[in-house]
């Protein structure tokens, strides 16, 4: 068996098993499609409702990728600031933690008031949700650098900034990328929340909005949209694994498999 196949067959087998059980359950229980559509109906909706779903998906994918990029930049910048300045740590960290408790719809109206019905309010929401895991893992990574390495740099007359750039930042990179993977998985649901909380006027409001509309009248299509988000999260997770291989090859452990 080839290696990629060896890696994915357990997940494939489990998926097939779960879909089979789902199909069987719907058949036996006689549940209505509006409550729980059977997998074959979802597949049908995916196939036939394609155009709308894919165009909306393109909107959502753009939001997730851009929002995540902003979250990464913000998370790294804030983590560096917190690491370098005890004052900033005391000032910023508690607020960052608290920000995660803010129900997004509360600020939805304000975001639309500031930035309208375009992509920008969505990006802000996604970034707000996603920066936090990056921030926490990066702060920990920056603090976990080998103190002997810093000592060595001091004997070589490195400045505080050089020690940060040459040792602390690269040492924290794998942790930051782990944070990015967590951020990514919450980022997809973040896009959903963003689309629901801040309306769009265009013809394609994004997959999240589409799902919310479909859930009452075209339930199989809502599930089809969900399946797309499911696959998208998985694909992004893998892509980030490849990025890590490029950016931090020293941190790849032999057993560091990604799902």
């Amino acid at each position, binding site marked *: 068996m080839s290696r990629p196949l060896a890696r994915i067959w357990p997940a494939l087998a489990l998926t097939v098993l779960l879909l089979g059980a789902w199909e069987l359950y719907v058949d036996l229980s006689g549940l209505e499609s509006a409550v729980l559509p059977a997998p074959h109906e979802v597949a049908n909706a995916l196939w036939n409702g394609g155009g709308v779903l894919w165009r909306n998906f393109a909107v959502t994918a753009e939001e997730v990728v851009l929002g995540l990029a902003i979250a990464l930049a913000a998370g790294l910048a804030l983590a560096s600031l917190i690491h370098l300045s005890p004052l900033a740590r005391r000032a910023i960290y508690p607020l960052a933690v608290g920000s995660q408790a803010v129900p997004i719809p509360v600020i939805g109206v304000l975001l639309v008031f500031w930035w309208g019905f375009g992509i920008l309010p969505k990006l802000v929401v996604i970034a707000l949700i996603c920066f936090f895991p990056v921030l926490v893992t990066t702060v920990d990574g920056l603090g976990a650098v*080998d103190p*002997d*390495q810093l*000592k*060595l*740099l*001091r*004997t*070589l*007359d*490195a*400045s505080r900034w*050089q020690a940060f750039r*040459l*040792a602390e930042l*690269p*040492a924290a*990179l794998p942790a930051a990328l782990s944070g990015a993977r967590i951020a990514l998985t919450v980022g997809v649901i973040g896009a959903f929340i963003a689309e629901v909380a801040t309306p769009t006027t265009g013809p394609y409001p994004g997959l999240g909005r589409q799902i919310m509309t479909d859930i009452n009248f075209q339930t199989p299509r809502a599930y089809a949209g969900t399946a797309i988000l499911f696959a998208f999260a998985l694909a992004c997770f893998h892509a980030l694994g490849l990025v890590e291989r490029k950016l*931090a*090859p*020293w*941190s790849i452990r032999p057993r560091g498999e990604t799902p």
Partner: protein
Amino acid sequence: MAIELERPPGTPAPVQPRRPAVELERVGRVFAGAEGPVAALREITLSVGTGELMAVVGPSGCGKTTLLELICALQEPDSGRARSAPAALMPQHDLLLPWMDAVENAALALRIAGVPRGEARARAGALFGELGLDGFQRARPQELSGGMRQRIAFLRTLLSGKPVLCLDEPFGALDAITRAEMQEWLAGALAAEPRTVILVTHDVEEAILLGDRVAVLSPRPGRVLEEIEITLARPRRRTDPAVQALRERVLERLAEGAV
């Protein structure tokens, strides 16, 4: 107190150093322990002449590493006076940075001093041949053997351009054969480019093979039990009866100190 040993005929008397590069005067260092203060060093007086290689031997935990960090100004003495020309530390573990390749690690001090990347790499890379490392310029530290890593760490210390090199058990982690090779190599490297060296080791033979003088430290709190001047001609061979006699002598002194 220095003890003159019989010099083989024809060997010139060692040149008396002018101004010492390193001077420790009744230096004491105390750390806070779990059960009250622990004295690491007590009344250490040591003077190392410019161009001299001072080997320091002592039992584990006698404060040898503390001694080097005092010389490198990474610590301050609690009592007494420590003065040294600018000193670079080669730590016990090579502490190569895993995110840099071999040349970049060797060139670390040059980069810190502001030498442009290309020039720093070229200068460090040019020395790889002499170290038997040609072809490994771009290798990452984790791809290299322990001996190679130590040589790169030594090159990094050497390229710092500091007149005093503090080597903390540089070959302690190596197997016997590699260690013997490295000792020979170090003797050659220092003959080609003389520096003042403080070599901390618990390998008595190594101290005698490489040192101009050997300082024997007591168990903690470390103080100098004896300084032995080694006037044997170089290159020295470990099988030389004179080397073996000195070894016995140092070991006896260490054993007496342990009582």
